[in-house]
């Protein structure tokens, strides 16, 4: 038996289809290479992602401080506690607001930048790309300290600029009405480079020959852009915004170092609240933290599901038109 015969590229398989008399064992044997390729994922991902997920589900049913052996089973009590916990709801609201505001801004700004920076003939283009990427790799611990200076109400650069425009100094990080917006701004600043990188990669999938064909047809710049570039990028908008949403749901480090969730809970995102419940409290409640983690996961899934559904409906409607 040669390896060639066992190859089942998707295209081929869909053409001929598995014969009904094929038994399961036979099928599996035929696809053994496929399973061999999956083996690392099954073993590693199973142990380091699936297992911890199952564990979290289990912990969420326990009354467990995260310390010591005593951890009685309490069923859904932790979930009940979460539903009645105003701070949990508050934190979900803050997280949602951050997503609603920063995800579109990040995805759009990064796309605009990527369109500029995709031009290899632009002088210093590599240097410019690198500049926008640097914040992504900067240590969060130092960002917290630096931003305190940047937004310093007494003589920081932002307020100095505002003062020259005649605006009263704003306590960006210290006031509960502005802290959240400041954190969002810094969040976008820090991570824009990553989204930019996604877009630069996505732009490469637009084949050059499409442009060449358009040019032969005498299409102008604007026409090419709206006729080719944008439609070709459309599927990536979905993927890139999804990645960004999931990443933003789990926003933690930056908030923890910049405000610790304050002032007075105004920047309390769910991950920070979970961390506080699990570790940073005189009375750690690991079970409760796990339950909130699971709930956060469910909420993320719901958002992503809704988003996918909407984008599918939208693209269908477009197709009909």
């Amino acid at each position, binding site marked *: 038996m040669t390896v060639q015969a066992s190859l089942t590229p998707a295209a081929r398989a869909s053409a001929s289809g598995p014969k009904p008399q094929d038994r399961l064992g036979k099928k599996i044997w035929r696809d053994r290479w496929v399973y061999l390729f999956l083996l690392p994922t099954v073993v590693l991902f199973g142990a380091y992602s699936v297992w911890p997920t199952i564990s979290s589900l289990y912990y969420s049913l326990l009354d467990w401080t995260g310390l010591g052996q005593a951890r009685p089973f309490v069923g859904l009590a932790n979930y009940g506690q979460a539903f009645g916990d105003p701070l949990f709801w508050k934190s979900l609201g803050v997280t949602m607001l951050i997503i609603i505001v920063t995800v579109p801004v990040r995805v759009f700004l990064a796309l605009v930048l990527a369109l500029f920076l995709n031009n290899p003939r632009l002088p210093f283009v590599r240097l410019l790309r690198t500049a926008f990427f640097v914040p992504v790799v900067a240590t969060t611990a130092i960002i917290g300290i630096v931003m305190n200076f940047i937004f310093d109400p*007494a003589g920081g650069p932002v307020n100095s600029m505002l003062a020259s425009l005649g605006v009263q100094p704003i306590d960006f990080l210290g*006031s509960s009405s502005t802290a959240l917006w400041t954190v969002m701004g810094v969040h976008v600043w820090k991570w824009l480079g990553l989204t930019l990188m996604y877009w630069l990669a996505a732009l490469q999938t637009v084949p050059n020959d499409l442009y060449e064909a358009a040019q032969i047809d005498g299409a102008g710049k604007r026409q090419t852009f709206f006729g080719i570039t944008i439609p070709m990028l459309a599927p990536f908008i979905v993927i890139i915004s999804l990645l960004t949403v999931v990443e933003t749901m789990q926003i933690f480090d930056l908030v923890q170092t910049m405000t610790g969730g304050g002032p007075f809970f105004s920047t309390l995102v769910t991950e920070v609240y979970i961390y506080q419940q699990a570790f940073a409290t005189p009375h750690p409640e690991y079970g409760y933290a796990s339950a909130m983690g699971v709930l956060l996961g469910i909420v993320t899934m719901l958002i992503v599901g809704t988003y996918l559904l909407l984008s599918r409906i939208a693209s269908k409607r477009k197709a009909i038109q």
Partner: protein
Amino acid sequence: MVNLDRRQFIVAGGLGAGALALMLAGCSRTSAQKPSSAPATAAGAISWWDQFQPLQKLEESTFAAYGKAHSGASVKHTVYDPNNMGSALQLAQQSNQLPDVFTNVFGVPDMVLVQRKWVAPIDLTAASKRMIGSDFLLPGLHVFDGKIFSFPMFSFRQHSTLTYFDKDAVEKAGGDPEKGPATWDEFRSLAHGITKAGGGDMYGWIEGLTLTDRIRAHIVDLAIGAGAELSLVSNSADSPGVADVKTGDYVFDSSPFVDSFEFLKSLVKDGSMFPSSTSLDVRTARARWAAGSSGLFLDGSWNVGVLKTQFADSVAKSGVTNLPTPEGKAKISNGPAGGVFWISAESANPGTASGILNTFATPEYARGLAENMDQPPSDLDVVKKADVPALYKQSVSLMADSVTLAPSAIVKNPNVAAVLAEMQQIRPTLGEIAQGYLGGNISNIKSALTDYSSKLSTERDRAIKAVSSKGSKTSLNDWVFKDYKAGTDYDASKYKS
């Protein structure tokens, strides 16, 4: 490779599976791999975690000296950021990797460490015991079932609300640069004057409010200064361990507390508080004060240690006075000093750990502590003789003259620690309420505090019941000290009567 046949495939797959099986079979629990040969008494390598960055050099030279005298003894010392050390300890406990010696920043009362058998007794020499003083080794805090598990190294005669001030700024604002503010009114008008003279570059008062434990400590100190008579389970106890001394009730809505809140709020209203204080951590606030962003700063004596190492110029420019009180007469009390270092029950070398800890209970080490200007050492006289700036000596003597020992419910009945461990955290906490009130999110402070006190009381009642039902005797009466007289030390002898 091209025509890998069935046999080759099986070999390849088998190799992989075999390797996996080998891996699984060949390894045993990391945590079970204990060095088997080291006898418990011999000197060996130990790991040591604490958060005392200013003391790092002192500690490490002590370790080195011990290693020289006891061949084989060595210490892997890690200084943690206190914000991270709690979670690090928690994760270490989870994975059976507690260091041999650590400070209790778990957040749980010390007794819980003993109850859960995470810690082992210290083998203290008679000389060490004499040095510490038997009055300061207390049941429920250091001594459990007659065995000593830890000991205090710092004096209880301390608090974290001394007023440090920039002499020039105070003078410019019309204050006395040698005395500084004593009353709340003086503090307020001085802060206002400094802000006015500062023209937007310097403010009256700066505070780091991100970590709310700090403002809680200030509030409790200010309330005691304003006449609240409280029992405190230990040195700068968290609010569940702070109760009215005569009734045992939580009285965070009593007038000394409300007045203290309003005093701080008046500084905010005047525009005297450095604006981003709510988003600064204490370390940054301290540095900003030293660099001239504000004139007044409330802090403990360790402030001088930090200034000396990082802002040497400002030591001479700074003055210190006691915490501000309504009348200007600082009388303050503090709970008994708790144990500092704990030895892990899992330690393979408890002998080395005890040996080193004994060297921490010597006059030489106390002198070292004084010279490093952190919290004042138990023996305050050492500070007088130490070669340290006058600012530090003055800070310590201010506290020595004004701080008395408050009664502690834990010392009265160690089971109180179990009650505290059982109590769920009530949020917003006292510190968070302060953050919210100063930041303008809470308008009615009195009702917020009443709400907080009553929730805390309900939770304590529940915890007392829960603990009692497990067979540990405790009641609200453990929190009541009818014979306490404000301004006197409630020392070990008082508990016996």
